[in-house]
């Protein structure tokens, strides 16, 4: 694969098409391949750069060490965009990759043109959710820990099933086709790093600090924390737009790639 050496790490990426650069950041348990169903329509007018974050496939990580964190991945993405040397880029992140993209926009707005956050992952602090208790664990913490424990013990499919069912609902893993299942398996060990990462929750000040034109995209059928985080952030990121895609849940761009690409291209062209 093509790679750039960023903060001492060889970061792999896929680079397709010509035009203004759109950098895509995958979420938990995924890698550059997750964007496959949208590469075709998006690469007609844009240079699509789909990265694999540190420790994700094509690396085969053993899950050991403290270099899997939001902070590390944000540092890496800043270094990546700088080294790309293509001027300000459009940045799109899904799920945990949306969290990374949000933090990047907070720290380095000079690197960005537009920002697309597809159901960013994370937690809300009391300034955004009065019901949130500081230092209380996210409702996802316990099931994700249990998933990581299974994976560490060698029960990869058991751990992944627990993770996916937590996000997508009961039996989601069983219903998932074999090909996307295998992609999650290839990244299973990254969950060991993720449960050790103590990422700070989003605050109202964080959201209000974003100055990049921002689009939030959600699955119309996504429930729970992800939907709450999306709508709360959108309410406080100045001038942001929100589009929800009918008939989809969290992996909305896999479930409705054509509609997703229309939404993205319209926003980037406006």
């Amino acid at each position, binding site marked *: *694969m*093509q790679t750039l050496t960023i903060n001492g790490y060889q970061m792999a990426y*896929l*680079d*397709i*098409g010509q035009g203004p650069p759109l950098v895509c950041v995958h979420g938990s348990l995924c890698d550059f*391949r997750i964007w*496959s*169903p*949208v*590469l*075709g*329509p998006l*690469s*007609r007018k844009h240079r699509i750069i789909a990265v694999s974050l540190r420790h994700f*496939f*094509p690396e*085969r990580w053993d899950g050991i060490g403290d270099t899997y964190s939001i902070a590390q991945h944000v540092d890496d993405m800043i270094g990546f965009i700088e080294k790309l040397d293509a001027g300000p880029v459009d940045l799109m992140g899904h799920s945990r990759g949306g969290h990374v993209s949000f933090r990047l926009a907070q720290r380095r707005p000079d690197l960005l043109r537009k920002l697309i956050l597809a159901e960013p992952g994370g937690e809300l602090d009391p300034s955004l959710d009065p019901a949130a208790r500081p230092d209380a664990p996210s409702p996802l913490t316990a099931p994700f820990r249990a998933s990581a424990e299974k994976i560490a013990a060698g029960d990869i499919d058991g751990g992944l099933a627990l993770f996916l069912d937590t996000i997508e609902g009961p039996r989601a893993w069983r219903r998932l*086709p*074999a*090909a*996307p*299942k*295998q*992609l999650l*398996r*290839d990244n299973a060990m990254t969950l060991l790093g993720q449960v050790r990462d103590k990422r700070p929750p989003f605050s109202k000040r964080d959201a209000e600090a974003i100055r990049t034109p921002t689009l939030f995209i959600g699955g119309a059928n996504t429930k729970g924390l992800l939907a709450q985080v999306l709508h709360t952030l959108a309410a406080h990121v100045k001038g942001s737009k929100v589009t929800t895609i009918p008939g989809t849940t969290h992996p909305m761009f*896999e*479930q*409705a*790639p*054509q509609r997703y690409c229309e939404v993205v291209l319209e926003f980037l062209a406006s």
Partner: protein
Amino acid sequence: MQTFRVNGYDMSYLEIGEGPPLVCIHGTLGDFRTWSAVMGPLSKTRRVISVSLRHFFPEHWDGVGDDYLMAQHVADVIEFIVKLDTGPIDLMGHSRGGHIAFRVAEQRPELLRKLILAEPGGDLDRSLEPDANEAAPPRAMRLGVSADKIRHGVIEGGVAAFYAMIEAEGAWARLHAAPKQQLRDNAFTLLGQIGENRRPYKRVEAESIRSATMFIGGADTQGALPAVLRALATHVPGAKTKMIEGARHWMFEQRPQEFCRIVLEFLDAP
């Protein structure tokens, strides 16, 4: 993407992993992404090189021109392997890509170590199938229907008709949106395939293959593909055959772990 200049064309490829090189050739409507589901397990011990043939995505071809030909793609793959300059490689082809891989093995056995043909596409001549209707193979006629739809802008209908012909009536409606979009991205290549003038397989050709060969099939695949597989496997000297239970033509997407186990076992054997 990474590319090699091959016979005047920039041929894109994805390369992952280290070890003995395994070059993978996608089939009709496929591209380098076709092999995504098996990239993980295979790249643990192999340098996996997944090409996009001339005119397939990431090119956005308009279907105009006369260089979408079986002979052209065979010449391109030969040149690609020569340019790779690693010594003999393992070659794996699926469907029409299996046809190409067969022809490479026929013409340039010195370039290959082992050959894997996953339900190779094509037609049998009378030396392999006494009842063959060489003037009008039935699938060529149905391919024409798909191409006509695409020519008239009915992309979805054309691709759906092709998919139903290979898998089963109604199979397109059951297929998930992500693999659908990747087929759609290559819809215009079907226009080229109408005039590609591929010759049927002959018994003497099968008997001439010198590379160690394995055929892989889906146990539930219907129609001509299993007949071609069995006929060729009978006449390629020393060929092995593995059928994957519960799988059809896209067997490596439907059963990626089983497919990889079979491939690695064959490649690892002395």
